[in-house]
Each structure stands twice: as C-alpha cells, then as structure tokens.
C-alpha cells in the first residue's frame, strides 16, 4: 500500500494498543477512520450502517490488538481493512435476511439507496456519473476496485482482505474497469 498514512509504524501503534495505551488507539482511529469509513460506505452505500460498522471495527481492533502479532504477520492496514470487509459482509447478510423476511422490494430500494449527508457539497456531473457507475458494480468488483484505486493496495494485499486469490483480484478489477468504461460511454451517448 502507498504510504498515505505517514511514516509512523502501524505495527508499533497496534502493539501499544495491545498494552492498552489509549493514546496509541486514538492515533490508529484518527489515521484510519476516514479511509476505512470511505471504503465501508462505498461498499454498503449507507451512512448510518457504515458508521456502525466502522465503530464495531475499531472495537474489534482494540479487543484483538493484544493478539495481533501472534495471529498473523500481515500489515496493520491490511488487517484493519480485512476486518472492515468482513463486518461489511455481515451487515449485507443481515440486510438480506431482513429483506427476505419483509419480502418487499420497496424496502430493498430504500435500504440500498444512497443516503446523503445533510449539507454535503453537490458533486460535479462527471463525478455523479462515475459514482452511479461504481454503485452499480457487483459488490466484489466494487470492493476490489476501490481498494486498488482509492486506497492503493497491491493485488496481493487485496487478495488477503477479500480472502481470495491474486488472479481473481486481477479479474475482478479488470471487469470492474470494463463495466465502468461501458457505463461512462453510455452516459455520454445519452
């Protein structure tokens, strides 16, 4: 991953969190809350669920920090995004269970409709168009593309986060880009 979070070692911070150092935890939160929220929000397309998931994520990080080094040797950023991805999947499963119980397509549209933050600045036309394109991508393609393009993870790191192989990450990103290209072309023609 690109060094977008600064030079401080995440490993040392996580180790300190493991020793229940609250300042280190706050630094981890401040470092990751925005990129992780951004990823979870683009995956779930709902602000309130994204906030709940990110809160749960940091609680899990706090609880699991003492065991972090012992469990695996992955980079802290990959580890954090992996937990975020797993929690997001659980949230989607929960929603789908709820939808099956409700059996109402209207509810589905409401639940998956993108909520806007009050007072948020309106995006430019092109950004709106690409945002709709990203929203229409299948979940696995969307997550792989965002992890690559917005967060700068390598294919190997993405494969660890999404719990899949490098070659399927390659194919997911390829297909996501092709779909987006087609979508943007269609938008321009209309």
């Amino acid at each position: 991953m690109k060094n977008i979070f600064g030079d401080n070692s995440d490993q040392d911070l996580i180790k300190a969190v493991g020793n229940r150092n609250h300042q280190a935890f706050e630094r981890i939160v401040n470092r990751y809350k925005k990129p992780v929220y951004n990823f979870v929000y683009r995956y779930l397309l709902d602000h309130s669920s994204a906030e709940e998931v990110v809160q749960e994520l940091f609680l899990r990080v706090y609880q699991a920090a003492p065991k972090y080094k012992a469990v695996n040797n992955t980079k802290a950023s990959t580890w954090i995004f992996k937990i975020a991805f797993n929690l997001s999947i659980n949230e989607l499963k929960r929603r789908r269970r709820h939808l099956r119980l409700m059996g109402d397509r209207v509810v589905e549209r409401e639940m998956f409709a993108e909520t806007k933050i009050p007072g948020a600045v309106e995006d430019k036309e092109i950004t709106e168009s690409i945002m709709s394109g990203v929203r229409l991508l299948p979940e696995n393609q969307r997550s792989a593309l965002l992890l690559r393009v917005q967060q700068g993870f390598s294919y190997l790191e993405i494969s660890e986060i999404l719990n899949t192989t490098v070659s399927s990450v390659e194919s997911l990103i390829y297909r996501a880009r092709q779909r987006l290209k087609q979508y943007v072309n269609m938008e321009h023609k209309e």
Partner: protein
Amino acid sequence: MNCLKIKEKISSYMDNELDSEQSKCVDQHLLHCRVCREELKILQQVDADVKEIPACGPSAQFSAQLMQQIAKEADLPERDGFTYNIFVHFFKFFEKFYNLLNSQWVSTTATLDEFGDFPPCSISYIYFKLLATKQRG
C-alpha cells in the same frame, strides 16, 4: 501478443502488477497499436474519475462515542480466550434467566395453566413451576 490479449492485461499493466517480461510485451505493443493506447487512456481516465469521487468521513461525534465505548470496554475483565469464551455464554444465560424470574411483567401476564406442555425437569418447566409457586404464595 495480439490486441485481445493486451486488453486483458492492460488493467494489471496500469497497476504495475505484471512481471517484467509481460510488461515489456505490453510496452512494445502499445508503441505500435493506436487502439490499445486509446484503451489504456480510457481506463486511466476511469481510474482518475474514481479517485475524484469525494471522500466522506464519519460524523463529528464518532471519535468521542468510540472512546466512550472503549472506556467501558477497558472496565470489563480481560477477555482472555478459552476461559472467557467458555463461561461468558453461561453467565449471559443465567443473567437473563435471573432477570426473567425477577421481572415485573410476570404479575400482569395471562394465566399460567395453559403452559403445561413442557417436558418435566426442563428449564421452562422449572421456570413456570417457580412462577406458579410464587403466585400461589
């Protein structure tokens, strides 16, 4: 490599995920093929547009709420693997059971006689037996 193969590799090429040999192949092909160069340009534009999507963050109260939860968490006993995982479920169960026995709504519920079909010595049987005794008392 022909254009079809190159187009399949172009996405990984953009991400520097090809090995040096494949990357050289794509480089050479791009020098001569205008169509593939165009494809690369379009995909790079798609990426640039995705990067342009405005970033959003959690609400202003997020950190404060989280630190409150963490403070609560810190007060809890250490959750050290095996012992915690074994006993926490028992504790939770008995806590709920105890709360049920002492709950206020019991006195306002309907007749208990209709709940007579639990197997003897099951928890439900004991529970309703206790309630019946309590009511009689």
